[in-house]
């Protein structure tokens, strides 16, 4: 992508759909995706699905959990489009962020004018130990897991480094959980729609110190779906499209131990810088964001990497409640991975779904007023993949 495209939207979202997130008993991967796709299609009466949809870009991490491969054709087949080309992306929890970014590329290339972006994951039918082992495979098995690091222990080590350097406290981590649960309580699609207290977080059992049970996101089933079009034809499908105006992606070492500064998410900062430059906007222009709160510490690190505050100052935004729905920069109005849930492959596109709902005034009880610009931040593994997108009300 070229900076010359600065003022031109890259692509437009004209519809979005989400399955319920949580334990979706009785549904297999292809059916969970079909729930999300059906909602996206139903919400877009002007879309002639069979005629208009030219390709599927789908994020999915754990293919082995159903002895089933070929997620792309599988998903297309079960939504009545077995003949269209499909592309499956795997970058752990950033899988559908990758799918979205590549779907945008396909629109920009001119090859397709209407595509669907999907994400899907089914995790709750696995034993918890099995699910966590699959998820941990996004880190460096040979040096982290084999040496006793669990996935929470990796983010716990990052948290400890941040606390040591900047004086962030466990109470600040708890504030992230409390906020996101209060947002998720307003989201009918959320896995856990329940408010919690600081005490509840602080008293929850230690998973990997300093992280406790309520610092961790949820193991959920779920799917997400977006209808993405060339901006020139977006109004054929809706009066209120949402334009994607910036896209950035960066990488980092697979293991956290190799990184220069353990208290930052460097790839996220670099991905954000790309997206801001392409969109021609600054962090202070952003009205709301969905960030990758796989653990509470990750949301604080995201504030800093995305430039919502200076490094080390993430705790101040929480103390001043600036990231609540009525704050100056509401973050994770959907409830985030913490409360809405984290069906890993579905998460990136689900973040875009929330921004779409917010920028088209469809977020109901959690609606942010007068939002023009939104941002999503999606991470894979311990931040070895970071993807940032910026959206403008169309």
């Amino acid at each position, binding site marked *: 992508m070229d900076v010359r495209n600065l003022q031109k939207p890259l692509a437009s979202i004209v519809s979005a759909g989400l399955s319920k997130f949580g334990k979706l008993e009785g549904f297999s991967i292809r059916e969970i995706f079909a729930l999300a796709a059906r909602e996206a299609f139903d919400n877009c009466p002007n879309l002639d699905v069979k005629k208009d949809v030219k390709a599927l870009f789908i994020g999915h991490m754990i293919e082995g959990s159903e002895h089933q491969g070929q997620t792309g054709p599988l998903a297309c087949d079960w939504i009545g489009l077995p003949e269209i080309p499909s592309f499956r992306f795997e970058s752990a929890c950033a899988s559908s962020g990758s799918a979205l970014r590549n779907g945008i590329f396909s629109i920009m290339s001119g090859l397709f004018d209407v595509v669907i972006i999907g994400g899907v994951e089914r995790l709750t039918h696995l034993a918890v*130990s099995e699910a966590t082992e699959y998820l941990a495979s996004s880190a460096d098995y040979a040096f982290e897991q084999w040496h006793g690091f669990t996935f*929470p222990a990796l983010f716990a080590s990052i948290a400890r480094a941040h606390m040591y350097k900047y004086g962030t406290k466990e109470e600040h981590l708890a504030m992230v959980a409390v906020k996101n649960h209060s947002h998720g309580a307003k989201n009918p699609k959320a896995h856990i729609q329940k408010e919690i207290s600081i005490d509840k977080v602080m008293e929850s059992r230690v998973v990997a110190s300093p992280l406790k049970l309520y610092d961790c996101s949820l193991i959920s089933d779920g799917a997400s779906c977006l209808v993405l079009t060339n901006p020139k034809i977006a109004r054929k499908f809706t009066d209120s499209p949402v334009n994607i105006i910036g896209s950035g992606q960066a990488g980092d070492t697979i293991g956290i131990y190799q990184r220069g500064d353990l208290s930052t998410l460097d790839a996220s900062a670099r991905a954000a810088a790309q997206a801001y430059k392409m969109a021609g906007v600054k962090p202070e222009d952003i009205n709301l964001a969905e960030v990758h709160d796989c653990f509470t510490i990750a949301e604080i690190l995201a504030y800093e990497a995305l430039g919502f505050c200076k490094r080390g100052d993430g705790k101040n935004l929480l103390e001043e409640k600036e990231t609540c729905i009525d704050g100056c920069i509401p973050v994770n109005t959907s409830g985030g991975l913490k409360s809405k849930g984290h069906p890993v492959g579905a998460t990136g596109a689900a973040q875009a779904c929330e921004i779409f709902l917010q920028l088209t005034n469809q977020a109901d009880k959690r609606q942010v007023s007068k939002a023009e610009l939104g941002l999503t931040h999606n991470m894979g593994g311990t931040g070895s993949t970071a993807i940032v997108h910026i959206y403008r009300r169309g």
Partner: protein
Amino acid sequence: MTKKQDIKNASTVGGDIEDFTRDENGNIYPTIENFYRFCSERKLMGIKCKECGNILAPPKMSCSKYDSYKFDWITLKGKGKLLTYSIVHVAPTDFQAIAPYIVGIVELEEGPKLPGIVKLKKVEDIKIGMDLVTDFEKTSIESWVGNTRYYFKQP
């Protein structure tokens, strides 16, 4: 030279491989398998880039600083400082017998950083910045050749 059959055995049954995997000139490949083979001989080894002198541990197939894949293996002193840590309470199946246990990231004197288990006489002595040294232990988990892991302890 190691026969292909031996390599296959090594990845399925730890400890069965007879020798290091080497290139046509007899140089030991900078692989993870070979790194852990050195561990099973109680040696913490890194590699030094022949072009820029950068030291890598664990070894990689290419230098991270210079576009080079020519290295010498070097012995690391195994001394370093604790950068960060976590105490794992909810442990994977293979580690439940020792939970809660400490994992940490240690910056070695030679520069590289390694993650590993930290064993202290008193858990409450854990402190960022503390001096640690490397030791080795054979594990019951069948994984890398020799099933030997380095870990960190107080000097």
